[in-house]
């Protein structure tokens, strides 16, 4: 890098890169916080709020995000257009049904700084419900960000050897099936 000319070094430092993140089985809030940090440029030591050094962020598989707890039924997104009688309340599940990218979009919008640069940063965020990305975006991508949450393996994904190697936590009774409650 030190062999570059000064103008080339400057260009490389201030260039806007395209970052990819896979949202499969991830909590949307964590994805959104990672996106907002990158969109503002807060991950760069040359950060300044006025310099517009945020990167582009492409989020794929937004249809497969995973809320923890009962948020799919309990989290409510409210909106009001200003006209009487137009107060709408949608649960996260209904919102996701209507538009698979809306949850992450609203989350990122709420996490960006509430100033005039927010709209330009949202323009630089690209959301895709599945992993089918258009060619021009695929060509621009430079880096994939690691997923914030480690996906736990399902029981069916463990091999029989691993299941046998797991230590016995307690010794069950020989006829434990007798004690199971039958509904």
């Amino acid at each position, binding site marked *: 890098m030190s062999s570059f000319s000064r103008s080339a070094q400057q260009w490389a430092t201030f260039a806007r890169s395209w970052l990819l993140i896979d949202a499969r089985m991830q909590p949307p809030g964590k994805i959104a916080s990672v996106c907002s940090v990158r969109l503002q440029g*807060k*991950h*760069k*030591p*040359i*950060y*300044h709020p006025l310099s517009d050094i945020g990167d582009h962020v492409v989020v794929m598989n937004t249809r497969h995000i995973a809320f923890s707890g009962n948020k799919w039924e309990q989290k409510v997104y409210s909106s009001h257009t200003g006209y009487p009688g137009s107060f709408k309340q949608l649960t996260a599940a209904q919102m996701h049904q209507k538009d698979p990218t809306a949850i992450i979009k609203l989350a990122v919008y709420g996490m960006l700084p509430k100033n005039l640069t927010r709209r330009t940063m949202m323009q630089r965020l690209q959301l895709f419900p599945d992993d089918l990305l258009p060619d021009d975006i695929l060509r621009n991508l430079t880096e994939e960000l690691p997923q914030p949450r480690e996906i736990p393996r399902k029981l069916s994904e463990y091999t029989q050897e691993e299941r046998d190697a797991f230590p016995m936590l307690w010794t069950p009774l020989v006829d434990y099936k007798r004690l199971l409650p039958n509904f």
Partner: protein
Amino acid sequence: MSLLGMFWNQTVCLLQHFRGRKNRCYSLAVRAVRRAFVYASKARKAKRRSMRQLWIQRVAAASREQHMKYPALIHNLLKCSVALNRRVLCDLSITEPRSFQSLTALAHARRTEGLRAALGDGAEPPGVFSRITQLQ
């Protein structure tokens, strides 16, 4: 020597960019110039605050690039009696990335020593970096 002439001679460079009649008419201009001076005085104090905030944001970004968080970095550099202030750390992180990387490595080493000393039962020998005494 008219006061009006003195006023315009001294302030014309300051109020050229004001909006509306504040850049032309004496009564409005006087009030606008006084407010501008007040804002400038307040901003001189706020400038120091905002510069420090910017340095902290930049050092935090650079340390996160090196897999370390800002509070951990600052605390551990303090424990190693490295008295670099945030301004210098910010400049190093931009112009001398390798030096900043070595500073984060130092802080990381001191941190792991501190954690080992806290979690262990004192049977292990104390670490190398923790032998540096505190600054007075």
